[in-house]
């Protein structure tokens, strides 16, 4: 028990507004969001940036960054900046989609397992544990190699299908503890349907947690997608940051010293994923306020 409980009742809306205000006052959240927004803008503007596509041969070969080609050109004379902007774009798409799918599956499995309990829980937990110990990346390689990945959406579905187990576990545990709380009992006694209870009572109480989960999945999916792209298992014809690294490496860009080819894609990924993590920490500070003394 703490004595700091607000003594004046606070409405849910006021609380949300307060959290929102605090979030926008948190330097980590701001820094993370600024980086994410800047790169997102670049990705969105990618098709407008120039008249040529990311794989078109437009300039001299292996030219260092210049006023014409901001990030230089590849060994074959492709515009690295255009490739980079397009790569950023598909990075966001895959992160949002795969992260969203993973979060959705994980939450659903976790909610249902935690809420229903019993045999349903046993079965779902078993499935969760199986997928959890399965080395996802190895299985993704097999799937991508045989089934093939023909679009970013397809890739996202594959990645999302293997990233959810830890979410399901955590959500299940939280649902278990929320389930026994008074407000849920009350709703159940008054005959509210289980799905409605999950949506209206349990969901909002875990809202902040689910947002954090989504952000982590977002970042993880980006790394997985880049890894698949790097192995040449990405969607064909789709420029991505992983594919840029693949092509640079295959073309001996390291030995030839074409650093402007292989540095940007990595920096892009580190910036996006890093900014996601920083935002996550900042939001965590806001949601779980604790003036930690050190």
């Amino acid at each position: 028990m703490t004595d700091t409980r607000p003594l004046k009742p606070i409405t849910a809306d006021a609380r949300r507004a307060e959290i929102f205000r605090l979030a926008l006052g948190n330097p980590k959240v701001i820094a993370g969001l600024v980086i994410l927004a800047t790169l997102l803008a670049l990705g969105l503007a990618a098709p407008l940036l120039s008249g040529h596509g990311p794989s078109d041969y437009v300039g001299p070969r292996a030219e260092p960054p210049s006023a014409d080609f901001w990030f230089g050109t590849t060994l074959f004379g492709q515009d690295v900046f255009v490739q980079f902007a397009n790569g950023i774009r598909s990075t966001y798409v895959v992160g949002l989609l795969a992260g969203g799918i993973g979060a959705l599956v994980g939450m659903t499995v976790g909610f249902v397992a935690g809420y229903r309990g019993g045999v349903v829980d046993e079965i779902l937990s078993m499935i969760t544990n199986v997928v959890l110990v399965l080395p996802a990346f190895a299985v993704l390689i097999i799937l991508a190699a045989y089934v093939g990945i023909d679009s970013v959406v397809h890739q996202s579905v594959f990645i999302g299908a293997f990233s959810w187990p830890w979410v399901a576990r955590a959500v299940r545990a939280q649902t278990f503890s929320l389930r026994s709380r008074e407000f849920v009992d009350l709703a159940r006694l008054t005959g509210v349907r289980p799905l409605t209870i999950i949506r209206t009572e349990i969901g909002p109480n875990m809202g902040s947690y689910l947002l954090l989960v989504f952000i982590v999945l977002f970042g993880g999916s980006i790394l997985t997608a880049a890894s698949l792209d790097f192995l040449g298992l990405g969607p064909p014809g789709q420029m991505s940051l992983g594919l840029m690294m693949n092509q640079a490496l295959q073309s001996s860009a390291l030995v030839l010293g074409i650093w402007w080819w292989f540095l940007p894609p990595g920096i892009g990924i580190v910036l996006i994923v890093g900014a996601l993590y920083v935002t996550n920490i900042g939001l965590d500070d806001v949601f779980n306020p604790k003036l930690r003394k050190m």
Partner: protein
Amino acid sequence: MGRYFGRKSIVYALTCIVAVTINWLVPRFMPGDPVLQMLISRGPDTNPEQTAVIMDYYNRLFGFDVPLWQQYLNYWGALFKGDLGVSVWLFPTPVADVVLRALPYTLGLLLPAILLSWFLGNKVGAMAARRKWLDNSVLPVGYVLTATPYMWLAILLAWSLGIVAGIFPTAGGYGFDLQPAVSWEFASSLAMHWFLPFLSLFLVAFGGWAIGMRNLVIYELESDYANYLAALGAPPRLIRRYAFRNAILPQVTGLALQLGVLVGGSILTEVVFAYPGLGNLVFQALLHRDFFLLQGVVLFIVIGVLVANFVIDVVYVLVDPRTRAGMQGVSA
């Protein structure tokens, strides 16, 4: 404890069956004849005799003439005999042989990288939890490292320390001019080629462990038993020791959960350094569309990860006194 192992064993057995079944199922239910496709993709048929032999071999291996359930059982039977088929790329070497030749390189990278990063990451993370100045540097560095794709860090290291500085070689498991032998020259070449891939695997993993441990220790320092000890005037030293001991347990579990990711990281790192381990084998198999080799390597990796997981579970029971004391129904 029996219940604990019982449940775990069921999960592992199920996972193993699922993995093998996926591996069996995927090529069989893909449109087209995978054997033919693969052979076509090898380019112009220069040796019709050999091709016929391969075709025949694989058709027999797939056993298209027997019912599906029997094909499935045969697959398991072959697996238990250690028969992963024959590589197309390196025909007629059995996949199992190719895998076993590459295995020492991958283990030589992975084991030191995993163990050292875990050990040092936990140490540094726990230290960061109590020293503000260290925390201020460990935390950002740790987050940057965990946000770094394995292959990119590998590329960075290969380029900076390998090519620009010229200190380390950047390709292969040992000098191209050398033959494996028990000699100083060979050993030092091996070590030089080993260092950069090791370092890049180590660094990314290290960042993750350090951050994890830092957060866990801080969490433990705010736990009830820590507060109670503080209320009884116990010195911070004792409280920190208890917090560390409690925090290390989830890190052991985390080790099991991270294995798949780390193995994935080693695949990528080996590709960058053309390091002759399993990861590079995966890449070569993909390049040469040698699906039998690919399946064999991946299946080997999956089962290896499961076995390692099981070992870690056993270790967990040994290090967590609560399970060691023989309690029932302790969830891990």
